């Protein structure tokens, strides 16, 4: 049994570190196909990372150690956060009461350092990006926690592993409406936290309306590689959370479950690609409204569970 836990844990870590660079590739390929282009290869994310890690780094004379700490802290916190999220029915390597709080606050720690690193360059563009990143996150976090309230109320569990374990199928048969609302809310949070359309357009550089990409303008080489990889991992983590709610069934065969997870994550990436192909970015002043809507969706889910 212990060996199996070890295998599952290693597989979890392997997937967490290895799979994410595929997701932006799938998203971009979907977008390209929708637009009738060939697009970059699906594995482009890996090529980019390989290139970035071979390069040297350039630092601004304005910056201090905080600038270098930004990517490091963001990457480490994302890995640790990823170790807390159950991947479908596989218990995560670490699970304890309150781990969902730790998950959100670890990501917040990464955000704190990334935004501070952006301000460390003294560039107004990066200041703008950082300001938007922390501002919109303040509305995304309550939506995430409202979803956790619904899950905790439904399963009576205080940890992620317990929330997304065997009792969820009964939850779907009893409170499907609430779970649909939570899924929808978390999908919006996924798009916001990962700077996807309609919140941010990852394809345009150097625009006054950018959020994430403009925040990391001054990073280069391995540091930028860590940021790109961390951002992909974050997308994977949020995708796993959404899938955890959405697909409550287990096949019984652990290997088939892993395969199901893989298929689910890739399908989610295709779905994000479809969303990005079919709509434009929102005006900045409308972003808070959509995030408040995400909070309200999750809140309605909670209310449905309470009555």
């Amino acid at each position: 049994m212990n060996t199996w836990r070890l295998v599952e844990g290693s597989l979890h870590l392997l997937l967490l570190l290895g799979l994410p660079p595929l997701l932006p590739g799938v998203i971009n390929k979907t977008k390209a196909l929708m637009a009738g282009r060939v697009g970059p290869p699906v594995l482009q994310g890996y090529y980019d990372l390989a290139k970035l890690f071979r390069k040297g780094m350039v630092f601004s004379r304005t910056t201090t150690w905080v600038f270098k700490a930004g990517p490091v802290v963001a990457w480490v916190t994302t890995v640790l956060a990823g170790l807390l999220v159950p991947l479908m029915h596989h218990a995560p390597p670490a699970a304890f009461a309150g781990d969902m709080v730790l998950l959100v606050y670890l990501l917040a720690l990464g955000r704190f350092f990334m935004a501070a690193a952006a301000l460390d360059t003294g560039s107004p563009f990066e200041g703008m990006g950082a300001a938007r990143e922390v501002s919109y996150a303040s509305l995304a976090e309550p939506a995430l926690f409202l979803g956790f309230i619904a899950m905790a109320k439904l399963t009576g569990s205080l940890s992620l592993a317990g929330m997304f374990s065997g009792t969820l199928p009964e939850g779907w048969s009893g409170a499907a409406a609430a779970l649909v609302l939570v899924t929808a809310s978390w999908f919006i949070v996924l798009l916001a936290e990962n700077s996807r359309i309609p919140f941010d357009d990852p394809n345009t550089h150097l625009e006054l309306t950018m959020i994430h990409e403009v925040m990391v303008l001054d990073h280069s080489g391995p540091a930028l590689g860590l940021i790109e990889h961390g951002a992909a991992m974050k997308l994977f983590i949020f995708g796993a959370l959404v899938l955890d709610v959405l697909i409550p069934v287990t096949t019984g065969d652990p290997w088939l479950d892993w395969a199901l997870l893989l298929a689910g994550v890739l399908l989610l990436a295709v779905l994000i690609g479809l969303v990005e192909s079919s709509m434009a970015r929102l005006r900045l002043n409308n972003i808070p409204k959509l995030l408040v809507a995400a909070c309200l969706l999750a809140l309605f889910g909670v209310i449905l569970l309470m009555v």
Partner: protein
Amino acid sequence: MSGEALLALALGAVLAGGAAALLPAPGERPQRIAVGLTTLGAALGLAAAASVLAYGPSAGLRLGWALPGAELRLQIDALSAWFLVPIFLVSGLGAWYGLDSWRLSEHPASARRLLGFYALATAAMAIVVTARNGILFLAAWEVMTVSAFMLVTTEDERQEVREAGWIYFIAAHASTLLLFGLLGLLWRARGSFDLEPFAAGALSPALASGMFLLALGGFGIKAGLFPVHVWLPPAHANAPSHVSALLSGVLIKMGVYGMVRVTWLFGDPPLWWGALLLALGVVSGVLGVAFALGQHDLKRLLAYHSIENIGIIFIGLGLAVGGRAAGSPALVALGLGGALLHTWNHGLFKTLLFFGAGAVLHRTHTREIDQLGGLAKAMPRTALYFLVGAAAICGLPPLNGFVSELFVYLGLFGSLGAAAPLRWLPAVLAIPALALIGALAVACFVKVCGAVFLGEPRTDHARHARECGPAMVFPMAVLAACCVGIGLFPALVVPALDRATAGWSLAGATVPLAGLAPLAALTWTGAALLAGGGLLALALRAAGLDTRLGTWDCGYVLPTPRMQYTGSSFAQVLVTLWRTVLIPAVTRGTSDQLFPGPSHYATRVPDTVLERALLPGLRGIAWLLAWLRPLQRGSIHAYLFYVFLTLLILLLFK
């Protein structure tokens, strides 16, 4: 030695230090003697608290007092000891800090006064948390309040300091007035002023709730609970920085202590007390951080964060009161444990942040965030410790703020399963509110750290700054180490915390926190973060060709430090989002001509309660009362006529 004896020695040393400051010796010597004695007193006081937290409550001390109903009655139980720790730690470190920031030779007039009242305030606070007689409590409370007023008005030659002092004085006495009412009801309920728990069912619910509401008003004002926080921002901003630290780190916690002590008196509180405390905590937490975002003054911003953190403490306290009403020891342990630990934590990181802000003020002579910048290069140690404090106050792991917030979160999530709506509904309100508070705090402290310490200096003030002396940096290092220590090894403080909460939950059924919260997981997370971050940083250092160039300027040729994103612009998105409560005041020049001249733009977020509700309301009352002014004629005949009239009315309606 017994706890009381140690405490008496500690108070003696602290007060002797205050008296020593008044010695007419020349130079710095009186201050050095004072700091030495304060340090000794703080060490003795911490020893007293530690002995109680380790071995259980002291025997208690009872001496007669000539005043009717009054007694010199002291006892240090675990709860008192828990509050004694920040009192002595912060005032001891603050005294060292003052050695450099408020030197006797630089401020010959005010430094002696400051040292004297600093000692008096410290001693009074120690008595407040140990007094077991209402009169003694109130006397110590009043000494504390007046000393704090004298401390706030240290620089009384400045107009804004005097105004801040008066607002504090009036608010503090409104608080004391309510506490007089509380003592009156205590006398009515018990026939004595003893602060001891009531037997179950000994009180009518109306009397108990009356006492609770009076306490909430009185202690709420002191704690800085929204909307009775109005005294707090100006007082914290205008006091000398180590006094701001004492006010924010310790003095406002006396309000928390009062609330904890008063709820301890009643064995079976109704559920709505808990819900009310929690709702007020939510309002205070969210609005405190929202107002902080809009501030341009570094110390005023930190003051609003005190309001936010008091909100978090009250959420925990409300959870605990609700837990006791519902008979759930787990909720009491998590709620009160979270509230008490956050009291310590806030005392640590807020003191650290005020020390850091004071160091910046000391070297740059400005509190305006947007006038600073780039100080991390000139003041590297201050910047590092400030960053630790900033991450801690945002509740980020692996620091102490996360531990106490996690306890509160766990309690809130745990109460979701309850059947009564008054039990789970507050949790549905408070969990997203805590998340919002946390995320807004991150935004606010990124703004502060970025605008003050990172980037390029914006003005000459910031350009010519240099690091402060060891007397100011060393206390910050101690506090930062405490923040990291509690965050990494919460299991070390939890046994003491269990003792403090056990004394409060009268029924005796207590659950140790170690069984409820993942303490070991926190240690592992912290270790993984530090190890992973350290290794990765080393790997990057080994890999990277560290080329230094200018910041990428998007092709623009002549960037200047003034083009940096300021703190105000950083907060603009959120301030706009919260404009319905913050009501920012904008003044701007026009630029309508063909060749517009220089223009200006300024924003300010005034305190909505003070400037839009309280002051207009008070002016209205003053206007109404002005109608009574003709009665004051200044002639003895008129007054004799009033006396006659009163007599006549009394005779008629006897």
